[in-house]
């Protein structure tokens, strides 16, 4: 760690990891309710569990992005963060907001209140006051990092990262628009959801991956910057109009079926480029970095994102296919592997990389960390397969043969049991990761000198 303010990342990563634990436990609980529907149904209904599962995911991924930003911006800009105080204030606002959401939903407080009450749109469930808090936190954050970058060295990595972060904030503003017309509601809802995960988040992902490749492989910055520009260009050239694949059946014009099919079929390209990029850099790299686990997570991120976001996305993105699979467990399968592969993995990669530096230690518990990668990935891959099978059967019985929804669901428990099992494996992997990252192995003395060449 070269700059004292990089330490801010530690607080962000810690909160993010706590929420990660809550998120997967919530997921496990939801998976259990799938097979034992009466469990907790009076106290904590499925919709609340599901909301906690998805929202804690979104929040911790964002906290991870923020932490990663605070970690890598000083090194890239060669300058300390403008205001550490503001950075911690931002974190406090976000934590209060998160607690606010949890408390409001679990105890069903302020029903119907315009400011304090539940807003109940998928993924944007936060009460209005929390949304406004997020906007304030985003403004603080953008001010803080933009000023740091403007006064410091400008690199392609900081440039793309900043565009991504500004995009996140700008598109979040659409969450404040909730018209009474459901079609319009849905159209602009995707401005947040799609343009986040299939556009601007990809910029954040690409720049963090580029930073990791720079540090871990020692390949020239010039080469990495060209790759990363190519990747983000492909991501936006395809991803912006790729939004069309959400505009097939929600009351929008028919031409979206063509636009969405064509552009989202090509959305696999940036993920493919990312795989080639990561492996090329490692292959060309001449550096033997001690943090093998961070490298594993980085490569794993590229590969799993390619399969989860790319391949599983393509499976059901063509309009004639999506006509039958839309809103089935196929979507759930894709969602799980895509989020895990792309955004969970990149966060775990940067955390694995940064933690030893933040704590002033050598990378420790490498083997356990790497084992956690394989356990988590295997669990998630198996979950994806089971949900894909469940979704295929559901599509056939319900969408083709026209059997009733619940009649079909009653035929799928075997898959939901397997999904629950794979979910348990994921949770074990997460616990292994948390232990490996936060609990020191034998108390090795910090040897900054040996880690230094890696900078």
């Amino acid at each position, binding site marked *: 760690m070269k700059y004292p303010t990089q330490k801010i990342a530690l607080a962000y990563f810690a909160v993010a990891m706590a929420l990660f634990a809550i998120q997967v436990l919530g997921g496990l609980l939801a998976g259990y309710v799938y097979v034992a529907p*009466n469990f907790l149904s009076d106290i904590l209904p499925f919709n609340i569990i599901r909301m906690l599962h998805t929202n804690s995911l979104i929040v911790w991924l964002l906290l991870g992005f923020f932490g990663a930003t605070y970690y890598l911006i000083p090194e890239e800009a060669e300058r300390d963060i403008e205001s550490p105080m503001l950075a911690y204030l931002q974190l406090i606002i976000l934590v209060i907001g998160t607690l606010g959401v949890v408390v409001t939903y679990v105890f069903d407080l302020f029903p119907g209140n315009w400011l304090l009450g539940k807003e109940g749109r998928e993924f944007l469930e936060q009460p209005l006051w929390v949304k406004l808090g997020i906007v304030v936190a985003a403004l603080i954050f953008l001010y803080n990092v933009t000023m740091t970058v403007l006064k410091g060295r400008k690199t392609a990595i900081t440039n793309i990262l900043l565009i991504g972060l500004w995009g996140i904030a700008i598109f979040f503003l659409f969450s404040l628009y909730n018209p009474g017309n459901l079609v319009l509601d849905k159209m602009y809802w995707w401005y947040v959801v799609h343009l986040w995960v299939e556009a601007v988040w990809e910029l954040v992902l690409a720049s963090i991956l580029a930073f990791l490749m720079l540090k871990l492989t020692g390949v020239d910055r010039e080469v990495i910057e060209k790759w990363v520009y190519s990747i983000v260009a492909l991501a936006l*050239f395809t991803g912006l109009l790729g939004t069309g694949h959400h505009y097939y059946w929600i009351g929008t014009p028919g031409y979206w079926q063509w636009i969405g099919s064509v552009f989202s079929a090509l959305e696999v390209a940036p993920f493919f480029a990312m795989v080639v990029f990561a492996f090329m850099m490692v292959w060309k790299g001449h550096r033997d970095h001690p943090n093998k686990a961070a490298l594993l997570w980085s490569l794993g991120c590229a590969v799993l994102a390619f399969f989860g976001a790319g391949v599983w996305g393509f499976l059901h993105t063509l309009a004639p296919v999506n006509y039958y699979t839309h809103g089935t467990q196929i979507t759930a399968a894709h969602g799980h592997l895509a989020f895990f592969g792309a955004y969970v993995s990149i966060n775990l990669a940067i955390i694995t990389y940064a933690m030893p530096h933040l704590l002033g230690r050598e990378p420790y518990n490498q083997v356990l960390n790497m084992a956690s990668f394989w356990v988590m990935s295997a669990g998630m891959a198996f979950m994806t397969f089971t949900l894909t099978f469940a979704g295929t059967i559901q599509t056939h019985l319900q969408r083709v043969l026209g059997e009733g929804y619940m009649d079909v669901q009653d035929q799928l428990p075997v898959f939901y049991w397997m999904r629950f099992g794979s979910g348990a494996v994921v949770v074990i992997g997460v616990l292994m990761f948390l232990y490996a990252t936060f609990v020191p192995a034998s108390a090795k003395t910090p040897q900054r000198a040996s880690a230094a060449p890696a900078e």
Partner: protein
Amino acid sequence: MKTKSAARNIFYGGSLFFLVIFVALTVDSHLYALNVSTDQAGLTEAVVRGKRVWEKNACIDCHTILGEGAYYAPELGNVWIRRGDPDDPEVAREFIRDWMKSQPSGVEGRRQMPQFNLTDQEINDLTEFLRWVSTIKTQNWPPNDAG
């Protein structure tokens, strides 16, 4: 101009090009939603209040509506059609009212819907919302009444 800054400018320009097209098409789709695909005249205050009931009870975190939402409970975009009678609109209205009042079923091994304790007014509004949603022109999705 170095190729790197040129590369950056092409990235900006190309992305802007696609963004402009996307926004323009959104405007067209916005007008389409207002003029073609939804019953703008029928979008009464009751429908909007019903949408609010739908939201404040986080219905979408179990159900789907027009295929979006959680996948734990049935699609409701077409529930008015699935549970209704084309000749007698009251059938669907009755069904939804009775359904809301009889939850949770408590049947062991069956997915449970919570009792939301909606007022008669709220149930009415919610029903109006679901009726209105069923009139949206969705390019003939879902493929059948099962949703």
